[in-house]
């Protein structure tokens, strides 16, 4: 009897470990030494006084300071925490799922990615105005302000609560909040803190514990169609499948549409990190199977969220995708018959 009890206790103790092990998910709440992040450089914080609360200086570059690196490594360790690097000063070896701002920050040009303030200057062509922006599709009560630069977070950015203009405030507390389940209910519980706004659900998905670093077809992020809706907030005219004609999704390359389960598309059956799909319903763990008729084309099937070596932040060089030849990459991952 005693043995049985011990066995049950052991099993109960081990269960969470197994769940963590096989779900590909790790606890992502930031812990450890405060100074590792909050005192990255002298004067980062202003000491509180009796009349003045504790504040940060240079908060507009706070995100970038933590998530940049001077080497080619795209994961760095700060205070025992793994920190995803989205901006490397030198060419990254394994860019993470969102891409790397290295390409838009250097001399490669504006077309390589999002011109985030603090990394690079405002886009010379669009002058800070998101292509295809349609205010009616932006759920932010502030709306995008083209008079101000694109930011990491806030109403002029992607992460955090886009009802809040200040990027720092928009994401405040998310790194320390309970971030599971990823149900889009709060910033912390939104996929990669992409909450969007209070009145809409944030992005949902399955977060790879290493942000797709050196990912494989069976170890990667899993996207839901909510990520397309999110992109629509700033590029509304590029999506919105409920609209017809020139506002319809077919007006552009379709997104949010299931990959057909017949014809050339049926041959795309093994998940490819160069052309990811979104899932009709999110799996419990990453899957290497692509299900035609269910899994959908997403904005991220072709584009990197941050920046890539290629124009339009594409995952591949569109100028060098050839039809009728030997290649099987890029567009041809889905368009297998070409």
């Amino acid at each position, binding site marked *: 009897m005693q043995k049985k009890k011990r066995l049950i206790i052991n099993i109960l103790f081990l269960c969470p470990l197994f769940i963590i092990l096989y779900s590909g998910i790790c606890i992502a709440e930031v812990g450890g030494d405060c100074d590792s992040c909050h005192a990255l450089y002298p004067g980062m914080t202003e000491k509180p006084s009796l009349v003045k609360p504790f504040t940060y200086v240079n908060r507009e570059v706070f995100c970038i300071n933590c998530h940049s690196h001077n080497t080619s490594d795209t994961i760095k360790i700060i205070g025992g925490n793994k920190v995803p690097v989205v901006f490397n000063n030198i060419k990254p070896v394994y860019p993470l799922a969102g891409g790397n701002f290295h390409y838009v920050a250097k001399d490669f040009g504006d077309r390589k990615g999002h011109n985030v303030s603090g990394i690079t200057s405002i886009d010379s062509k669009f002058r800070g*105005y998101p292509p295809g922006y349609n205010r009616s599709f932006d759920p932010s009560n502030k709306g995008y302000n083209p008079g101000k630069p694109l930011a990491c977070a806030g109403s002029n950015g992607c992460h955090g609560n886009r009802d809040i203009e200040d990027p720092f405030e928009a994401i405040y507390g998310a790194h320390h909040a309970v971030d599971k389940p990823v149900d889009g209910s709060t910033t912390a519980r939104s996929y990669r803190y992409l909450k969007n706004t209070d009145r809409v659900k944030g992005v949902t998905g399955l977060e790879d514990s290493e942000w797709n670093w050196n990912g494989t077809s069976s170890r990667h992020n899993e996207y839901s169609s909510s990520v397309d809706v999110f992109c629509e907030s700033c590029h509304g005219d590029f999506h919105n499948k409920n609209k017809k004609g020139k506002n319809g999704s077919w007006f552009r390359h379709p997104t949010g549409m299931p990959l057909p389960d017949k014809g050339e598309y049926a041959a795309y059956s093994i998940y490819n990190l160069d052309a990811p799909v979104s899932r009709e319903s999110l799996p419990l763990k990453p899957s290497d199977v692509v299900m035609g008729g269910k899994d959908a084309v997403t904005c991220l099937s072709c584009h990197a969220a941050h920046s890539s070596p290629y124009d339009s932040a594409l995952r591949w060089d*569109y100028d060098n995708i050839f039809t009728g030849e030997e290649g099987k990459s890029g567009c041809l991952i889905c368009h297998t018959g070409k």
Partner: protein
Amino acid sequence: MSYREIAKSQEPRAKSQGARVFYILLFALCSMLFASAVDARVKGKCKDCHSMHYSYEGKEMTYGGRHGPFPALTQGGCIGCHGQAPNGTKSIITNGKTRIPQVLHYPVNDNLAGGNFYYVADEYNPDYSKGHNIKGISRQENPPMDVPPGFMNSILIPGGTGPAYWPGQQQLACAGTWGCHGNRTIEDPGSSIHGAHHADDSIIDGSTAGKSYRFLYGITGKEHKDWEYMATVNNHNGYKGSIDHAAMDTISYLCGECHAKFHPSPNLGGSKEVGHAYNSIWRRHPSDISFASVHGGFAGSEYQGYVTYSLEAPVAFSNPTGAEDIVNSDSVIMCLSCHRAHAGRHPDILRWDYSKITAGAGKSGTGCLACHTRKGHE
């Protein structure tokens, strides 16, 4: 290991390398020999023909004033690619690795086999009697020419049934139910031809749009690789003809799908509208009959005088190769013997000026007199 040993050890490798070189050369030669038959799919960069979105840097993309979106996000749809330089004179434009036949450009002597929509294009000085009024190139013709002459309802077409009715406001399109190319059982032009440019068309059997002669679904034939640019009497399009009037894969059947009363197939106009096929009264100029079937027989007829294949008055064959330079009793008269497919410089899209063909005075071997050899003066 000594030098000799090294040399010895390398000897078999040298032999095998020699064999390898031989096989590589053999493969290369075979590839060159059969290249034209192996694969004529579109090659080259996706970006040469497609855009990823119907926008570029936040602005709408238009092509020659045409607004999209265009099927498969092509750059301007059919005309965007095949009429991309209407003010130029090139009949073939090379874009990257792809050679694109042009069907709309300033006329030169190297118009392609189908003709040139220039003659009916609204942006020039159109004469609608000279060609098909394709949407995007010409306005629709006034009645009664707003409906294809000789149209018949619900006739049998490859893949199904033709339209039960041709609405007066329905303009002709490049492809689809209301056009010529692609699968005509599919109404949308883009969908009807979807994928054809990328299909393996090394075998033209009419089984799909991609495997059909010039993407004319169900039609077979041999495609001249340059669309008859610089064609010769033994290197030209090979048109499919059939004298049993049951075949649906002939080029004349394609014409008959819209101009049904002009074609003798029982599926189309048959004897009622056209006339009996053999040794009988024809109400219209025969098509899909061979010279062997002419009234009175081939032997001793004027048609024996048409010996060498004429690019001006081509004939069809039951198994065309595109290399036939001899015309004989088995050669088949077809719609395209007299007409261009798209548009031409002469009324009724004729290959020649009918008003200037004169019996007893005209030069044999030209125009009507290419077949009717005894009607000329020479």
